[in-house]
């Protein structure tokens, strides 16, 4: 921990200003998630995961009673900024946990870290927050956005696919996804196809794929787009002939709608519900009992975020006023992550393992992703080296 004198002084000043110790007061955590609109299901997984963790910890984090304030960012960045100000100044939250989407993260990053409040992302990991604009108050229990895509790029390279067809929605995250795939894949890319955002019908792309006969396709199609693509890919008879590599397309939020069409399709992840640790088994069973669906990685990240806060507060004796001590405790991350190995890198993003996962049907008929093989071990994101902030 190389802490500069300047930040120490600042933190001390802040600590003094908030002097009267509030150890017995309720801890407040703001959940900033997308809970309306077509993408609401992602936010619901994250919300449910966090609340489950709080319940499992007896309604306390780090020994303090906890109040969770949930706000819906409506996936509008400017609305999110106002809601965040409400969380910070009206509700006076000690932590902000969220968001799902990168544009919300980018917009809300500044007000939160400016207020010297810890911001723990449970999904969004935009490149600039991992690199140039990294900040000592920003942590992620998820990943940097590119990493799941890099898994598939590595797999395509290792399996010796010569020609790959890339397909993504025409927006920033789509472009980043394909860039992430290309970081490790060095073969020929027969086509980089961008569809308009919220395209529901991929028939024209499927026709192209069938005529080009690539060795594999890689795609990033979150939400309803992914449901449609998978079903249409299967219906076009391509699923058995051309391997389907994807990220954020075949996951537990989409599988209930994709059903059997998705079975066997490959994806990249830092976790899967079938991972065989006692903590994870307990989590998956409890989540299914409480919410009647198989948890997706969003739920896992946010469950872990609660464990992280709990562990950090235990280390500081429940105190949040000494930011420097709290940060040190967060960085140590002394909790048992559901995914196994977990530690923070210098930029506040995890250094963790990544897996190739495959959609499969469990004996009870529900669908989930299951680990095929480990692809990266203790993997650091590509932007960490651009991070110069001293945390």
């Amino acid at each position: 921990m190389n802490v500069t004198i300047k930040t120490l002084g600042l933190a001390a000043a802040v600590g003094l200003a908030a002097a009267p110790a509030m150890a017995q007061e309720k801890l407040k955590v703001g959940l900033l998630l997308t809970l309306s609109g077509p993408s609401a299901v992602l936010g619901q997984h994250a919300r449910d995961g966090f609340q489950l963790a709080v319940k499992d910890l007896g309604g306390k984090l780090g020994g303090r009673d906890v109040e969770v304030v949930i706000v819906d960012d409506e996936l509008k960045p400017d609305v999110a900024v106002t809601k965040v100000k409400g969380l910070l100044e009206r509700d006076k939250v000690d932590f902000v946990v969220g968001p799902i989407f990168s544009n919300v993260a980018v917009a809300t990053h500044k007000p939160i870290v400016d207020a010297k409040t810890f911001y723990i992302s449970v999904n969004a990991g935009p490149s600039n927050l991992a690199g140039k604009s990294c900040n000592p108050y920003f942590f992620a229990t998820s990943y940097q956005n590119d990493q799941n895509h890099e898994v598939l790029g590595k797999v395509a390279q290792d399996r010796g696919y010569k020609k790959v067809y890339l397909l993504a929605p025409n927006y920033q995250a789509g472009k980043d996804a394909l860039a992430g795939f290309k970081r490790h894949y060095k073969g020929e890319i027969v086509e980089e196809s961008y569809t308009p955002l919220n395209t529901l019908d991929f028939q024209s792309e499927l026709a192209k794929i069938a005529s080009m006969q690539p060795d594999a396709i890689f795609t990033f199609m979150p939400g309803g787009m992914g449901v449609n693509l998978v079903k249409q890919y299967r219906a076009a008879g391509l699923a058995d002939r051309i391997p389907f590599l994807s990220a954020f397309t075949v996951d537990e939020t989409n599988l209930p709608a994709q059903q059997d069409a998705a079975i066997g399709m490959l994806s990249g992840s830092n976790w899967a519900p079938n991972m065989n640790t006692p903590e994870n088994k307990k989590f998956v069973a409890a989540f299914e009992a409480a919410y009647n669906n198989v948890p997706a990685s969003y739920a896992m990240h946010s469950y872990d975020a609660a464990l992280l806060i709990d562990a950090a507060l235990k280390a500081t004796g429940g105190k949040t006023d000494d930011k420097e001590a709290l940060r040190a405790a967060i960085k140590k991350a002394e909790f048992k992550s559901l995914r196994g190995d977990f530690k923070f890198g210098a930029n506040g993003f995890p250094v963790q393992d990544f897996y190739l996962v495959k959609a499969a049907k469990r004996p009870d008929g529900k669908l989930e992703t299951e680990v095929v093989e480990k692809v990266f071990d203790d993997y650091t994101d590509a932007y960490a080296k651009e991070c110069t902030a001293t945390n």
Partner: protein
Amino acid sequence: MNATLLFVQALNGLQFGLILFLIAAGLTLVFGVMDFINLAHGVQYMVGAYLVAAFSAWTGSFGWALLLALPSALAFGLLLEVLVFRHLYDRDHLDQVLATFGVILFLNQGVKFVWGAAPLSVPVPELLSGSVEIASGLLYPVYRLAIIAAGLVVAALLYGLVNHTRVGMLVRAGASNASMVSALGVNIQRLFMIVFGFGAMLAGFAGAMVAPILSVEPGMGDNILILAFVVIVIGGIGSIRGAFLAALLIGLVDTVGRTFAPNLLRLFLDPAAASQTGRAIAPMLIYIFMAAVLFFRPSGLFPVKR
């Protein structure tokens, strides 16, 4: 780009256009005959899809689900008519826009309330689940051909209904001069209900037909509503013929533009710039097309005289 691919893309454009037509037909009639802007038309499409999803989970058969969903969509449309829309016919357009937007908010949240936020799935009916091989390695799902067939049949029926029956005649008369029809002693209230319920059922039918290939989710009607408005405006409000033609044009412009715009641009730009520009232009194509049509034909392609 070979001829087969062009053919397949034309089929895709046709199918997309026909779905658009099913939605736009009801919208243009309601608008033309009743002078009523119904933003809630898109959620009726969504409700059709949800109904089929619910019924097919219940009965286990797409055919039965479709049979049950159609009268339910009709009943639902009529319920909305009685509860809300009936009170808005004599209001100005902005009041109608505001109130029907309220209906959208309510129903988008309502389906989430009832069925949850996660997308639902409807299996493709067994009978139509195969594919036909159009060229070597190029499969085309039978179900999509079925959508095209169903769309064409409905279009033909609609054409016959509007042009060769008494109700159709009244509808046509209503579209060009509603007050005259009313003055001639026609029960305009009942005509409105028929038109409205029929439009709602068509939208519901479109939703039901696409449910097996698209994901059924809250808000699925919002973007298609905008496209349906684009269609009826290009076609000329109140004109079924115009809506049919405009829907097919939009379907083709969208599909063909997505596939071939970068290739066309490559003729006079270098490849990197072409794909960059192509990507930027592709989503705009529909709107550029609409602006161009309205520039030359400010009342659409087939303006209904009034």
